């Protein structure tokens, strides 16, 4: 009489098949999560740039007056910043927009207050912000995202 039932070879083969199948399933799930993560990072990067560009344009447009907007070097900050000067009840208030430690930041300082980069609020995550004022014409700026995408912008001053 033949002995029926499983042998060790069959068992090993079956286990190998199961392991292969499991590995294939796991790799599919891992690659899907990797694809999702990559997609999310790209969306986040582009969203931050959009926020930064939109914010800068809106800020300029809401403060477009003669001799109100200037570009200055700021202590403790690598790149130049945008200074918007407003006079309220005889006192000068400066809104300073600058890039510091990976973020586009905005801070409000009174005339007698010293500028401090930490006394500001983060607006958007950026790698770099290059600002250049073209005399009597406008402000040329470039926003560089964390992933290295660069976008230029320009805002025209009021013509004289």
């Amino acid at each position, binding site marked *: 009489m033949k002995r029926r039932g499983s042998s060790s070879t069959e068992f090993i083969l079956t286990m190998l098949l199961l392991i292969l199948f499991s590995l294939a399933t796991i790799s599919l799930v891992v690659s899907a999560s990797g694809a999702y993560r990559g*997609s999310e990072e790209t969306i986040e990067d582009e969203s931050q740039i959009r926020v930064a560009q939109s914010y800068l344009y809106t800020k300029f447009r809401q403060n*477009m007056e003669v001799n109100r907007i200037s570009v200055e070097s700021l202590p403790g900050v690598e790149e130049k910043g945008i200074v918007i000067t407003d006079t309220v009840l005889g006192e000068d208030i400066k809104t300073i927009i600058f890039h510091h430690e990976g973020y586009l930041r905005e801070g409000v300082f009174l005339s007698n207050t010293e500028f401090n980069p930490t006394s500001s609020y983060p607006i958007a995550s950026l790698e770099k912000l290059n600002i250049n004022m073209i005399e009597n014409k406008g402000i040329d700026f470039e926003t560089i995202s964390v992933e290295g995408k660069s976008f230029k912008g320009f805002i025209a001053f*009021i013509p004289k």
Partner: protein
Amino acid sequence: MTKLKNRKGSTSILIILAFLMLIIFSVLAISSASADYRLAQRNANWTRDYYHLEGLVAEYRYQLDLLLYNENVINIDQIADIIRERDPEVFIEFTMEGMNLIRIFESDGGRRILLRTVLDYQMESFKVISLREIPIEFQYKYEIQFEDVEVRG
């Protein structure tokens, strides 16, 4: 106890779980991409709306310059009268600098731009002092009705 010992269908459970995870990731990817696209569209519409409004301002400034160029006006008061007659919404004020003209332009979406321009007393040209977008006031979706409190007793 028999059911727990029976390992048939274990691969199907694995398949279902894997399939569920894939579905979740793909739906999340599409929904976040769609949300981002809606934001991009909103930004584009916002920008388009702003430049349409700025176009109205440019046309207004052109009309003011044309007034100085074409009309036979002797003094600044005549210019002010002509402008008030043609545009009732303008606000004119005379200061030491000259004639200050303030006008607010509004778009259909509720956005506003304020134009402030000055004509000196020599009537050489209109100089723009301010061309600012006025922020839209924040409004609650559902207004809260405040009423007097009833005092009982």
